């Protein structure tokens, strides 16, 4: 055996476990704001991930247990489940997670080789294939006209049947970003739209709480050095700057920058999705460019594009640019700096 002869304890498995741990505040906030349905979708996603991962590892003749234990498949599953509508039908989750792991991860060469963020690939596939289901969001608990019990949620997710007397519209509601978009199309001003009951908190009912909980988990990752500050800061900074510019230009047509930070997948994207090491940029300057690009594209898609939220597509577009970004941002090595004597 050659040197070095010692190694630090943390492994890929430890890192992924920490990421899952960091997601728990966000999940708790979800349960508080939207009910227990998210727990069901997380469970479906986790089971699908374990099955899909094992299946692909077996096909590729890899040892299943050591690779399952790295936890990366479950992280992908949780991130996708958190990005999907909480009361999504079971097959939507299964298709999304299976596509993410089988196609976006393993067909690209497995852990470490995927060019695109698997969770976001799964999300994009569902968004394009099943747009109607992707816009069925649960109404925040405070605004919903009816509530489903845990059993009711379970039954709806697996059979699509609702308890008698409850109409889908009573439990579902468009997301704050979606509402903003629709109402703007109806020629309302942002000022008028923001008076709607869903906007009583920044980013929308429920969104703000979840955003702060996600931020809490993100800060944990930052302080335990699982992630570096570059991507979240550049992402949120970029989003804030471009939103500010548009907002200053025409506050009646463009929402405030703080709204954009709190709404949709901005926080989850900044701390948990864009920080995926495999599909993200790796050099310090590259990470800044990568994060900034996602922030800008997210806003452009939200404000000017065809989808209410743009995080997934922004991440995928910037994933495609990573090899180029990395190649052009290599820092000088020791003794090759220009100011070296």
């Amino acid at each position, binding site marked *: *055996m050659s*040197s*070095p002869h*010692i*190694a630090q304890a943390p*492994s890929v498995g430890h890192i992924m476990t920490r990421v899952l741990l960091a997601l728990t505040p966000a999940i708790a906030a979800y349960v508080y704001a939207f009910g227990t349905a998210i727990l069901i979708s997380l469970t479906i996603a986790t089971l699908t991930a374990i099955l899909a991962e094992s299946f692909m590892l077996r096909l590729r003749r890899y040892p299943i247990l050591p690779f399952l234990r*790295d936890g990366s498949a479950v992280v992908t599953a949780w991130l996708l489940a958190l990005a999907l509508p909480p009361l999504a039908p079971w097959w939507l989750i299964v298709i999304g997670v299976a596509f993410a792991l089988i196609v976006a991860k393993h067909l690209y060469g497995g852990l470490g080789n995927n060019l695109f963020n698997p969770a976001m690939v799964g999300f994009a596939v569902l968004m394009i294939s099943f747009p109607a289901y992707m816009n069925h969001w649960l109404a925040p608990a405070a605004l919903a006209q009816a509530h489903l019990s845990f059993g009711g949620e379970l039954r709806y997710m697996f059979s699509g049947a609702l308890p008698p007397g409850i109409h889908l519209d009573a439990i579902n509601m468009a997301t704050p970003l979606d509402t903003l978009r629709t109402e703007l199309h109806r020629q309302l001003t942002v000022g008028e739209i923001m008076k709607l009951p869903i906007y009583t908190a920044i980013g929308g009912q429920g969104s703000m709480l979840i955003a702060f909980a996600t931020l809490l988990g993100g800060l944990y990752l930052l302080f335990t050095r699982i992630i570096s500050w570059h991507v979240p800061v550049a992402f949120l900074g970029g989003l804030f700057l471009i939103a500010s510019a548009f907002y200053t230009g025409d506050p009646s047509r463009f929402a405030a920058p703080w709204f954009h930070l709190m709404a949709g997948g901005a926080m989850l994207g900044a701390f948990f999705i864009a920080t995926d*090491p495999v599909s993200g940029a790796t*050099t310090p300057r590259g990470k800044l460019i990568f994060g900034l690009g996602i922030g800008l594209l997210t806003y452009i898609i939200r404000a000017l594009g065809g989808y209410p939220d743009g995080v997934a597509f922004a991440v995928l577009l910037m994933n495609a640019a990573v090899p180029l970004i990395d190649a052009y941002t290599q820092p000088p090595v020791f*003794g090759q700096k220009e100011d070296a004597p």
Partner: protein
Amino acid sequence: MRKLFTFHGGIHPPQHKALSTHVPITRAPLPSLLVVPLRQHIGAAAKLRVRPGDPILKGQRIGDADNAVSAAVHAPTSGRVVAVEPRPVAHPSGLPDTCVMIAPDGEERWIAHAPLDYSALPPSMVLDHLRDNGVVGLGGAVFPTHIKLNPGGGAIHTLVINGAECEPWITSDDMLMRERAAGIVRGIHIIRHLLEPTETVIGIEDNKPEAIAAMQAACDGHPIEVAAIPTLYPTGGEKQLIKVLTGKEVPSGGRAYQIGVICMNVATAYTIYRAIDHGEPVISRIVTITGNVQSPQNAEVLLGTPLKDLIALAGGALPGTQRYLMGGPMMGLELSATEIPVVKASNCFIAVSARHFPPPPPALPCIRCTRCASVCPVDLRPYELYWFARGNNFGKAQEYSLFDCIECGGCDYVCPSHIPLVQYYRFAKSEIWAQEKDKRAADKARQHHEFRQFRLEREKTEKAKKHAKATAGASSGDDKKAAIQAAVARAQAKKSAITPKNTDNLPPQAQEAIAAIDARRGQPRDASISPLSGADREEDTMKPAATHQETGEER
């Protein structure tokens, strides 16, 4: 207080240094057999100057510096040379190397030696003295000191003395500084005399407060500064230490003297002092023996002492010892046998047990987490180098500065996928070296080939010229015809001289018939033998011989 600088990255592995520092330096007993390799330094092996059976004295030179980059080797004690043969040595290849086997007589009789009055001598003679006393860098690289102290060209403004000792477990420099600070300072004086630097600074990691105090006391009143530097692996790397103490970066692929700095290890300074002030060659060194042994300690050990004698000195290996390392856990070498001797590069031996050196978990794929890049002291992208090395994309690996890698192992240490990264870099480096060697050979072969083509062409034109000249002569054509006819006649004569054995008793008609057939056969056959085709054939047979000779000469 000196302004200190930082280099990028670095790690804080567990130290385990206190284990071997609570007892003073001991003296290892004389082993029953010393195994002294002739190659204990970077460069050419020393040239043997003793024979089996020779009686020898302590400090007697047994090998001369054989090249520009080489150093002498000496007998560590008095006794008799019993053999000169290949023996297992501490080398990554695991291959044996030529060693002088010495059976000590136990009398420790010194060869005549005397201090050198270096101030009265020209520097070159002082350097020759160091070379002939086998002084090499004891920090690990074992580069001959007489070459390092003769940088040539620009002036050296800063002399850096390396007392960092950043590798975990190792404490030999620490103990040397604690106990023999005055000798180190004398050595530094001699180096200062040779280099005349404007400033001299000793860098010691702040996890060695006793050594710092001892060196500060010894340097009191001397123009030598002692700097306590933050403990961070690999601060003891030459380029890293120079950066920390001066803020300057040695250029990539360059050497320290190019920026006016020379870096010397404290143990080297000490051997310089012994060689000059006492005339003693390098025949021993301080060695840490630690890890899974009964009583870890530092000992002054004669070079050539087998590892097993050191293990015995440390009270024996404890149960659970799996293997032994020479050097530290980060850059040390695994030894194949306990018969391997102490050499000038041996600062430490570690008995490895699973408790402190758990086997690494199986490697997982790289997830590009960039922890490796964040600890790299050279600011490389280890994950990219790994990717390129794995894909045999060596050109790209070189483009990403593979050869700036100092193999400190920091990237390996932090890798959450437990990929043996340094092994990949070593593989890529050796592949590139091999490819370059092949390329040089191929270039040479191509040059040979092109030259041969040119030469054949030239000979052809010369021949043609000669031929043209010859045919220009009037009678040359007739001469040729005559020669051909003569040859035909000779051949026919030869043929008729041979008598077929079974034609003696044949009837005359049969004999005539045979003669007629022979005549018929002979005619066309003779006509076909033209002198030209014969010459052609001759040239053909000559060709391979000429080629063979040519390649034999020029390769």
